[in-house]
């Protein structure tokens, strides 16, 4: 078939092709914001159900000024960071071992894959009973949430490195250092980084849940407390901040992936 680009009309048009510009992405959020303000204004719903956006904004500023918001955020993020460091490093090491050693694979992988099926959330009551309601259980549950996706991605990423890459290395008699950094790492890094990103998202989710249930600091606890006090404005601020952090983490990693792996054809 000739490869000409056609701008022909399709008589039986089923799909409408409107061509809006970039600004149109903002239209509906703004409309929703407007509707929200108007409905809250009308007083149809009680203060406790629907606070106007302006009030939420003021609450946000108050929380920011009093340092409360930052402190809760700090607590949450430090738990996340610590758990992430433990889980990611453990996951990387175990993943490498799983991929490279047949022994490890034979003895450990059934258990690994079984434990992997257990949702982190389900482990919260167990961890609370075993480790109490202090910091330990939260950090450990984050560790669990990060460990499994990272270990899986690492082991699969390494196993997926084509044999011929290493053969090329052997032909040129490259030393081990080169094999690892110039061949293995770039080949396996993309899926590993994806695994890390997934682990981080899941960890953030689990941490928020854990803080909702059993904590005396942190963003999750902040919104749970607010809920009990019927302060929906604080709840909204908390929800938005949680979403924002999740977004920044996730997209930050995606950007990192794109930049580091520009050579990868998508």
């Amino acid at each position, binding site marked *: 078939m*000739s490869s*000409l680009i*056609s*701008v022909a009309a*399709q*008589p039986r048009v089923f799909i409408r092709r409107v061509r809006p510009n970039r600004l149109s992405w903002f239209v509906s959020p703004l409309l929703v914001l407007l509707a929200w303000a108007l409905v809250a204004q009308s007083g149809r719903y009680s203060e406790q159900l629907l606070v106007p956006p302006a009030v939420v904004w003021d609450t946000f500023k108050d929380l920011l000024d009093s340092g409360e918001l930052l402190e809760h955020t700090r607590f949450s993020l430090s738990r996340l960071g610590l758990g992430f460091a433990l889980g990611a490093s453990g996951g990387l090491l175990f993943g490498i071992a799983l991929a490279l050693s047949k022994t490890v694979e034979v003895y450990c992988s059934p258990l690994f894959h079984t434990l992997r099926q257990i949702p982190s959330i389900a482990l919260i009551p167990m961890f609370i009973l075993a480790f109490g309601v202090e910091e330990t259980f939260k950090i450990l549950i984050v560790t669990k949430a990060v460990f499994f996706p990272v270990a899986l991605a690492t082991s699969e990423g390494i196993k997926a490195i084509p044999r011929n890459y290493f053969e090329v290395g052997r032909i040129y008699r490259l030393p081990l250092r080169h094999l690892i950094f110039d061949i293995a790492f770039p080949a396996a890094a993309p899926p590993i980084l994806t695994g890390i990103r997934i682990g981080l998202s899941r960890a953030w989710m689990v941490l928020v849940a854990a803080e909702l249930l059993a904590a005396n600091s942190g963003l999750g606890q902040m919104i749970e407390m607010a809920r009990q006090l019927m302060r929906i404005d604080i709840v909204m601020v908390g929800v938005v901040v949680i979403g924002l952090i999740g977004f920044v983490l996730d997209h930050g990693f995606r950007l990192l992936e794109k930049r580091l792996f520009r050579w990868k054809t998508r």
Partner: protein
Amino acid sequence: MNASLKQHWLDQTTHLPGSLDIRGLGKQYAIEGKPLTVLQDINLSVKPGEFVSIVGASGCGKSSLLRLIVGLEAQYSGDILLDGKRIDSTSLERGIVFQDHRLFPWKTVEQNIAVALKNHPLTKKEKTRLVAEHIQLVNLQGFENAYPHQLSGGMAQRAAIARALINKPKILLLDEPFGALDALTRVHLQRELQRLWVQQRSTMIMVTHDVEEALYLGDRVIVMDARPGRIKHEIHVNLPHPRERHSPRLQKLKDELLTELVGSDHVEVAHV
């Protein structure tokens, strides 16, 4: 040539072969704002039951021509008339076989052929019978429940032909139908197509790169030139069917055609 002809469905033909009249056809595309003339002043008359082959180098608009006739493209200048009626959209009266068979991967052979009858006013029993007949017609018995990915290229294309024929279209278009197949399968399917055409005598227009194929099957061979696409030359093939591939007359016509085509090669050098 096998003799497993089923005449009775021929008698139930609701669509008699149609006549095609193309007058002063022109087609332009817009590429980055600039108009590109793909077809210029095409004049072609196809008699009912005639088999016309179209050959030409890449870029001469032959595929665009077929797409206009079948109605997939609707904007054009000039006239395309089927039995006197202007063509402006797709219709069950006009069938097409693409180079990539375009069978739906998620349907079996039987279901794929039946798809053509979705908008056809027949009873369910009739449709089932018709589908079975056409599967037999293209010798795909036993493969009714196979999925396209399980078929060879030749088999898939045969199913596509059955799908195109089951509606008994007034005119059947074939866009390089055997281009993606290996040489042996191609020869085999050319023979099959000739057999089907002799049986049905539908009006058929086939676009092909293969000069021998064009002469083997066509009553007339149209040679098109590129940039802009227009008709350059016409050859009448007055040989009886079934034809011999190696007959001296055919070979002579082949030489004549090749000379026509090769002569326009110097235009093609600069383009891919």
